[in-house]
């Protein structure tokens, strides 16, 4: 574990600045050393001031969670030590600015106090370069070649030689200062051959996925943690022939998405809880008028304004059940940065194929974390477009809401033949308002038939899996998981297996419609079933029970941060004991 396998945490006040960048540079440098990385960050909801933190986990094999505790903790200031000491490994390495003396460091830990502030402010007269001196010291202490940081600095500030130069100087100063110290800890970086990897954040992957899927109109309103998607779209979508819109509120955003989709463009919006709630009425309309659309909701801690910069998985209820009336919709949840890309592509495909609103449930932790992921080959993607009416074949006249076996009816596009009215009132096949008893029943069935089609999406996209079953067919403990909690579950089940426990996992990425039979089979095959999720009400557990009539054990936490692997491992152990006892 000490070589090429550890977790670094960097903490400090945002007023000082540079904390997050330190972590990002570390992550990139480690990736350039041929290692896999996974970062996680938290920051205050205030604009200036307050503690920010970035954690970088690295290993030679793929990592799925951000790590339970810091092996190496870098503290910019005294408060950061206070905030993070509880999650500092008892025999880890603490690197701190020697402007303060950390109190209560366990005797088992290694401590390096280095005068970063003094070097930057007084020696270099460049207080902003403090983080570069830290990187230099890191390099000296753990064997990460300084050339890797140099390369990063040069490409990051390319075209600004002045800044490059002063940062290189700071890097060097930090390096030399640390070289004076005696190495007392076992952690070390052993560069490996570079692997072909991309580094992306969840939100970036979503933007790329949307463009890859053919998104042509994006409409949004700023909200943490989805504002960067709006900003990316405002900057880049025009370059792809698309039109991004920053509108006056989230009702307008979803309205514009529906208008655009009606007019033939693939369209999307991105928001978070409060904005998502505002979209409720229009999502119900999209279901009724059968207009394809994609809605990304990056969940944050709620209810209400809640904790805007903290993560949670508590909007599942709203995603699956929100909206008045019987509202068919599809809900997908990515769990990795790579998943963010592909799930977004699938969301557009499903929206087009089924003419339904598709909701992507991301979360703050996933949106803002970076990972090394496998390169993406755009040519390998299957892009599905809606079934368009082109004036052919319909001898008895075009009917927008024609009753079909799948429930999907070809869509006419303004400018082309087949003019009709998209209708939010109940309507007949032609789309004319209709209050017939039978008609409402028939049309409701039609709309819900499309959910069955959604469950057969692998017919359209071979290789797609709405769920993954990890481990044996039968086990003492089964874990059902969704969204970004899946990473911690993956690591916990791996450790549990190593301990000799009998455990399997079912990772759902299509949350609704639920693959009911698979989930039933999984539950019935396991001694006990654990369902960990970052909410209080056990939302997915409730959905699973509601759809299967079978019970699962909810494991809930609302602290604003992801599960630790250890927590889930402990829960598995407990259930395993129970299951064995009941066997």
């Amino acid at each position: 574990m000490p070589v090429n396998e550890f977790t670094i945490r960097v903490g400090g006040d945002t007023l000082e600045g540079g904390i997050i960048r330190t972590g990002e540079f570390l992550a990139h440098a480690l990736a350039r050393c041929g290692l896999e990385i996974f970062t996680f960050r938290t920051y205050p909801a205030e604009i200036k001031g307050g503690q920010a933190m970035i954690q970088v986990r690295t290993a030679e094999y793929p990592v799925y969670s951000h790590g339970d505790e810091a092996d190496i903790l870098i503290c910019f200031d005294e408060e950061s030590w206070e905030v993070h000491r509880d999650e500092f490994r008892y025999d880890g390495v603490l690197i701190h600015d020697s402007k303060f003396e950390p109190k209560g460091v366990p005797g088992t830990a290694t401590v390096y106090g280095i005068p970063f502030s003094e070097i930057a402010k007084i020696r270099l007269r460049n207080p902003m370069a403090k983080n570069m001196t830290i990187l230099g010291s890191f390099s000296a202490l753990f064997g990460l070649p300084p050339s890797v940081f140099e390369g990063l600095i040069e490409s990051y500030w390319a075209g600004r030689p002045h800044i490059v130069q002063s940062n290189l100087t700071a890097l060097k100063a930090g390096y030399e200062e640390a070289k004076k110290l005696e190495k007392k800890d076992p952690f070390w970086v052993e560069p490996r051959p570079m692997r072909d990897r991309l580094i992306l954040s969840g939100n970036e992957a979503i933007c790329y996925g949307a463009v890859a899927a053919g998104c042509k109109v994006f409409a949004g309103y700023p909200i943490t943690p989805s504002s960067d998607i709006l900003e990316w779209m405002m900057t880049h979508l025009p370059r792809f022939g698309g039109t991004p819109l920053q509108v006056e509120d989230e009702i307008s955003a979803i309205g514009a998405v529906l208008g655009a989709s009606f007019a033939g463009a693939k369209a999307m919006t991105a928001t978070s809880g409060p904005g998502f709630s505002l979209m409720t009425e229009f999502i119900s309309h999209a279901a009724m008028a059968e207009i394809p659309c994609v809605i990304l909701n990056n969940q944050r801690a709620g209810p209400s304004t809640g904790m805007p910069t903290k993560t949670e998985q508590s909007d599942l209820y709203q995603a699956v059940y929100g909206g008045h009336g019987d509202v068919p919709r599809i809900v997908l949840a990515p769990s990795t940065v790579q998943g963010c890309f592909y799930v977004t592509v699938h969301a557009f495909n499903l929206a087009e194929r089924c003419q339904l609103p598709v909701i992507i449930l991301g979360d703050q932790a996933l949106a803002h974390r970076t990972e090394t992921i496998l390169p993406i080959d755009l040519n390998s993607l299957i892009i599905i477009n809606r079934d368009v009416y082109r004036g052919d074949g319909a001898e008895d006249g075009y009917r927008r809401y024609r009753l079909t076996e799948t429930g999907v009816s070809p869509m006419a596009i303004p400018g082309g033949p087949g003019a009709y009215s998209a209708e939010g009132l109940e309507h007949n096949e032609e789309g004319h308002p209709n209050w017939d008893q039978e008609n409402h029943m028939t049309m409701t069935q039609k709309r819900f038939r499309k959910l069955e089609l959604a469950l057969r999406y692998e017919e359209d996209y071979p290789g797609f899996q709405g769920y993954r079953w990890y481990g044996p067919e039968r086990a003492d403990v089964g874990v059902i998981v969704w969204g970004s909690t899946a990473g911690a579950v993956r690591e916990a089940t791996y450790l549990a297996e190593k301990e000799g426990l009998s455990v399997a996992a079912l990772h759902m990425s299509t949350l609704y419609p639920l693959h009911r039979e698979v989930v039933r089979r999984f539950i019935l095959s396991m001694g006990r079933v654990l369902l960990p999720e970052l909410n209080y009400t056990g939302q997915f557990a409730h959905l699973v029970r509601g759809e299967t009539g079978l019970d699962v054990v909810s494991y809930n936490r609302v602290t604003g941060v992801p599960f630790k692997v250890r927590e889930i491992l402990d829960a598995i152990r407990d259930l395993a004991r129970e299951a064995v006892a009941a066997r």
Partner: protein
Amino acid sequence: MAVDAKVREKYKSEVKPIWCPGCGDFGVLTATFMALGALNLPPEQVVIVSGIGCSGRFPGFTTCYGFHSLHGRTMPVALGVKAANPDLTVIAVGGDGDTLAIGGNHFMHACRRNINLTYLLLDNNLYALTKGQASPTSFPTQVTDSTPFGSYEADVEPCALAILFGATFVAREFSARAKKTAEIIVQAIEHPGFSLVHILSPCVTFFDTYDLYKQKIAELPEGYDPTDLYGAVRTATDPERKWVGVLYRGHRPTFEEMIPKIRQKAEEKLGPGDLQAMLDRRRV
């Protein structure tokens, strides 16, 4: 603007309007058919976006594309339509409640964006479909089912608001004058930018204003200058007369003109989009 009856038929759907006999909205429908005919617009090039209200049923009575959206939400939908396909002719139809109560904010921002569309505001001074409650254009003295003792609040004047919001064509007409209304709609459609046509369209069932408006309307005098913004605001809010005609006409870049401009700037700065290259640039 001679339009023969046959051309008009082209825009009339087989769905019989559900409006009460004598409803002002019939006049607007006829005027719209006349205007579309005069411009000879193919029905499939026209999208009529409506809200919810008696007025909201409008699109279904035509052979054009229609989008019967939500109460108050015509403007977001119309914006999306235009973003996807700026070449379409978009007509929005909203009631006074639709436009000025629940939809007031979208109305403001649509004007601001100067989207090139025509907004037909069918004003009957109340909520008709829900059977006669006060709307933002109800007269302060008007007694409705929801204001049996008069209202707590002042009424608003949509033309003045639209002008200040940034609409670039603002006109008023009376649905009883179908031909005049048609002429104005033609001008509105031809105008590049956000065009409001405020149409006094009486509700014979809950508040019959035919006589009132017949007395109150007046055509704008010769020499009226529709390019004077502040003057137009004053004319629009004249307490004595309901002036009909083109109250205001301005010129600013439209939303549709901005789309390629921004695209060009983006490409100039960052180059045309190449997703594979972008992804590849994120290599470690």
